[in-house]
């Protein structure tokens, strides 16, 4: 019966090398097969292609002469957790966005969301944003902010910034225009 004991362990040994060999290899193998190299090359080329198409699409659909982009940013965000934002331009709703937890987190960490990209004629326009979410003490909170924007010849960028007004322990909503 001792023979059986040894045989079982030998069988266990047969089960192990695959794992053990893998363990001996550094985390990323230095040698890559031709297929891996092709995948790498394709990924690079697809990124480059997407970059070119991203720019082409923007030039085609949103030329600089009429382009307006509206961004949402959050500075600290202690007093406000954004659930959604509604954007109106000249009293017409152009965006209504509901945030996922991931997106809320990305905003808190300093990411800036390009909420809307569109075209506007030169001249005066009214940009209005309504934010809903959780305010201080987890109370439901809805606030609006508005700004007259002069659209000139070049592209216009508008930032809707949610920041903390520490002195009042309240959130603050600011619209800022970038050239």
């Amino acid at each position, binding site marked *: 019966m001792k023979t*059986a*004991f040894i*045989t*079982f*362990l*030998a*069988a*266990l*040994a*047969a*089960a*192990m*090398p*695959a*794992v*053990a060999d*893998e*363990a*001996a290899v*550094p*985390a*990323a*193998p*230095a040698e890559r097969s031709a*297929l*891996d190299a*092709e*995948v*790498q090359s*394709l*990924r*690079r*080329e*697809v*990124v*480059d*292609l*997407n*970059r070119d*198409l991203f*720019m*082409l*699409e923007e*030039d*085609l*659909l949103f030329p600089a002469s009429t382009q307006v982009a509206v*961004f949402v*940013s959050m500075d600290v965000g202690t007093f406000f957790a954004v659930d959604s934002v509604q954007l109106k331009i000249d009293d017409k709703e152009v965006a209504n966005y509901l945030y996922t937890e991931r997106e809320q*987190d*990305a*905003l808190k*960490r*300093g*990411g*800036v*969301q*390009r909420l809307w990209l569109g075209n506007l004629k030169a001249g005066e326009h009214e940009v209005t944003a309504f934010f809903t979410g959780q305010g201080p003490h987890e109370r439901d909170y809805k606030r609006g902010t508005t700004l007259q924007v002069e659209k000139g*010849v070049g592209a216009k*960028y508008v*930032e809707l910034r949610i920041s903390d007004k520490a002195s009042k322990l309240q959130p603050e909503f600011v619209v800022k225009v970038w050239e």
Partner: protein
Amino acid sequence: MLGRIIILAALAPLAAAAPVVEQEAIPGLPAVKVQDLHYGDVLFRYYQQDYFDALVRLAAYRDQGRLAAHARDAELLRGGLYLSLGQHREAREIFERLLADPATPQQVRDRAWFWLGKVLYASGMYEESDRALRQGAGSLGEDLEAERRLLIAQGLLYRQRYSEAIAELSNWQGPRYWLAYGQFNLGVALVRAGEAARGLELLDAVGSLETRWPELMALRDKANLAIGYAKLQAGEAAAARLALERVRLEGPQSNKALLGAGWADAAAKQYEAALAPWQELQGRSLLDAAVQESYLAVPYAYAELGALAQAVEYYERAIAAYDAERSRIGESIAAIREGTLLAAAMQAGGDGREGWFAQLATLPDSPESRYLYHLMAGHEFQEGLKNYRALDAMAKNLADWQQSLGAFTDMVETRRRAFEAKLPAADARLATVDVATINGRRDALQAGFEAAVAARDITALATEEERAQLDMLDAVDAELARHAGDASYDEAREKARLARGVLLWELDAAWKVRSWQASRALRDLNAAVYDARTRETASGRAREGAPEKNAALARRVERVSPRIDTLAVRVEEAKAAQGRRLADIAVRELEDQRKRLDEYAVQARYALATIYDRTAATP
């Protein structure tokens, strides 16, 4: 034989080192206040781990000149994004370029050194990686600094410079998480190098960790498993069992731990005790090597206890279980060859989000998905599937663009036609506007105002009514002049003089306000004329430039189209090849399993025959 087996078993968990160098996130970007909204947009994608989109936008915004305030941060991020996508060559080029630029600030430089070291490490260039990592100290945060030291230690470990690796990990000040990985990897390496005492000491530190963090609990299990098997090898059954008992009952290492615990008991001739962990294994998936082993171990223990009837019963049960599993593996191999495995794998998630791997264990028991959990536990299959998913995402991306490009072509053509249709009306409207004449009139007004100001000609700013009154007074004076010397007109003369005096006095009093108002009106007029001229120029330019611009867009659309088509074909080919490779890996793995089951079945039959022989030989 036994020694070799135990070493292999003990080293098996070394794969735990992988998460340290392969984590997807790019930690430790220098904190920056966003000065370009578009850089913030890239960060927004990046923080959601949407690395592909972040990279595309970063490249596009950079080329559009929208990241000027963050040029170096953006490059650092671009390198990090390439690194996270596994594009080591691109990442390395970017980091080296940043380091060669003397204007790169120290904070960015430290991170570039760190990430370059990481790329070199992942490429197996440990000497070069070591040099880069040692230059990257300084402004890295706590986590990056810990990872840097760990990478240095692991680089030394792979070059078998164990003492230096131990020195690198001693006096560790960083987070415990990183230290535990470092100690574990080093401990396993030392056991492997024959320095069991030093290795086991390190492993014991990890194996005794008190933690509620799932990753560290998993690492603790691996450490205890490694200790357990090493102690078994050394013939220290009691110590082996103590370590193996510290492994959690539910977890990826539990099967091996239960098997080992049984062998520890068996080594101490406590076969009855050995039956408890081995019988616990019998209810688990037969694809696991430890479970397969337990089907032979249980009857072996019964045989050792002299309970030959039970031994026979369990050997027969083992043979039936192996045969059933063999036939299920056969079905799965057939399904894989028909290409159903990949569909199941793609449906099963595995996008790197939390919890996807555990979900695989709950997939329906069908031939195509039955062994996915097991296959995906293998590094080679997982890496291959990652590539397959990337290719699938690329194929979808290219298909979407192919569709959009058709719309782009239509759009350019519609725009061309609309322009041609609107042109005559626009030209006619433009012809009615003579900005040059307006400009001339504005110039004359300006000159008149400046002359009046220079001469302080108060009558120049008289109102229409005052102008009429002045004209009337001029006429009265002329009439009075015709009666010069006639005393009867003296009173009238005096009244006319008085009236003129009053009017001029009023004009003089109003001069300051009127000249200011006139100057402001001229300023407004200048602005209006300037706007009119600008719009006229813009209209002219648009009129001249629009067809050219439209043609340029049409050319861009036309040029990009074959690029998409060619790439789509290459992606499909690579995807098919990658699919074949995955199927090969899966079939090879399952064939190995089947072979192993065959061997087990032979062992079971042999043992059974031996028992029958013995029984027959007994009078």
